[in-house]
């Protein structure tokens, strides 16, 4: 697997002298990764993303994206990178949905005919073709999020960075965004780097999870490895998924159960526990 980004023990000082150190494990993103960064508020997640985008320059440490320094080669990196910020309202620039999605294409000199085809394709992928002529500020939160996602994905970037993409969405919209992300990762091979507090979505979304605790990358692993490590999660002020918590309690009471992280695994375990064979 090709390495797309690496962050090694960086230190950043904001103008108000707030210092953020991201040390511990190396942060590595590989091709086609679906990577989730977990951490409480103020743990440095957004700082980490800003460095990956080349918006901040570290005082110390190393940040490499596509084998180069994103801050120095900003223009080179941003062409291969898509970003969806937490506040999508500020991200949607175009006067209509179509204009916004076409923004990066036309600014990168892609001919209008080709841009039209690319816009239609991504609108189709995300199921928002019917919104193409709508004015963004009259859209719902979920629709705006999808428009921002379309604008970020239209250039078919190798790496897509999403800062808390599920915040403020209802369960249906969360599900739709989750489905869209998995589809884009599958179809275009785009690696995803997502920060979120929606821990219950992590098992479905991620293949790799990092835990940030007060500036330290303290744990990295598969969702199964990370979400069942209650000690690290609690230390980082994170709540484990409700299924993990429930089955851990059942195990503490002496029941022979494992620690499932998805609904399907939990269902399987419960059926085994009640001796249900599935044959009437």
């Amino acid at each position, binding site marked *: 697997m090709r390495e797309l980004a690496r962050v090694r023990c960086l230190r950043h000082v904001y103008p108000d002298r707030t210092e953020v150190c991201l040390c511990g494990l190396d942060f590595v993103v590989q091709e086609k990764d679906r990577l989730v960064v977990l951490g409480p508020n103020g743990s440095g997640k957004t700082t980490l993303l800003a460095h990956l985008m080349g918006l901040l320059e570290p005082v110390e440490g190393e940040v490499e994206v596509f084998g180069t320094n994103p801050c120095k080669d900003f223009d080179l990196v*941003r062409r291969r990178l898509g970003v969806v910020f937490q506040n999508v309202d*500020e991200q949607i*620039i175009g*006067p209509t949905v179509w204009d916004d999605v076409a923004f*990066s294409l036309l600014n990168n000199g892609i001919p209008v005919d080709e841009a039209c085809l690319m816009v239609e394709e991504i609108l189709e992928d995300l199921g928002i073709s019917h919104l193409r*002529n709508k004015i963004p500020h009259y859209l719902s939160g979920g629709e705006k999020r999808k428009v921002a996602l379309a604008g970020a994905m239209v250039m078919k970037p190798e790496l897509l960075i999403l800062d808390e993409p599920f915040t403020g969405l209802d369960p249906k919209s969360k599900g739709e965004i989750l489905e869209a992300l998995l589809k884009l990762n599958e179809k275009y091979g785009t690696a995803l780097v997502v920060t979120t507090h929606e821990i219950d979505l992590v098992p479905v979304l991620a293949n790799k999870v990092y835990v940030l605790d007060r500036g330290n990358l303290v744990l990295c692993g598969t969702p199964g490895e990370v979400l069942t490590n209650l000690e690290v999660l609690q230390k980082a002020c994170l709540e484990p998924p409700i299924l993990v918590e429930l089955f851990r309690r059942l195990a503490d009471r002496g029941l022979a159960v494992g620690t499932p992280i998805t609904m399907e695994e939990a269902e399987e375990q419960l059926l085994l526990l009640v001796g249900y064979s599935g044959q009437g």
Partner: protein
Amino acid sequence: MDLAYLDHLAVQGESPLHKASAPAKLAFLALCLAGVIMARSVLAAGLEIAVLLAVIWWARLPLGRLFHYTLYPVFFSSVFALAGVEGFWPSGVMVILKAFGAALAVILVICSTSYVEVFAFLGRFLPTIVVDGLLVTYRSFFQLLSKMGNLFRTIRLRGGYSPLALFRNIRNYGAALGLIFIHSWEMAERMYKIMALRGYQGGIPSGNKAKFSPYDLLPLGLGTAILVMVVSI
């Protein structure tokens, strides 16, 4: 606040006038304004106003609310009429009717044409940087408006507004405006970063290029009819 309301009327409207293109409606506006300028009698100006009111009603726009907006020019033209036209009342009435007619025509077009269409049309003549500035202002306006609404609501809920405490109200709302200024500054910085990340090279696309449609015949025909009617009276 009313700009958001006018934008809402323009975007959500379904009447044939709403469906006509921006250039056709701007031509309609030019014809109406020419009619207002060329009207020589109270009857001609009055008839033009009657037609415009009928169009507003027919386009399902809220007549009462739009009438309210025209009161500003009517008020100032009344002051001018009272001060400048001595003794001869038809001249004074003409000044007021002309102001009222012009305001109605402008409001009718504003309420049936989204800003986006107007900016796209202007983009054909104005420098890109100016049109981009207008578009970014348009997007930011609605975001700041929502922030401002929330902030003012919070001030009221937290007891920062009292009908009798004028100075305290001024102080609290002044502080809120300062906060909005800081918010807008931060927002501008974030938007700058986003535009850089999205590859802004000068030029926000506005693919909303007006195409001629049968609906365009309506404002063009109506505008011409108004002008002919006014000139012939």
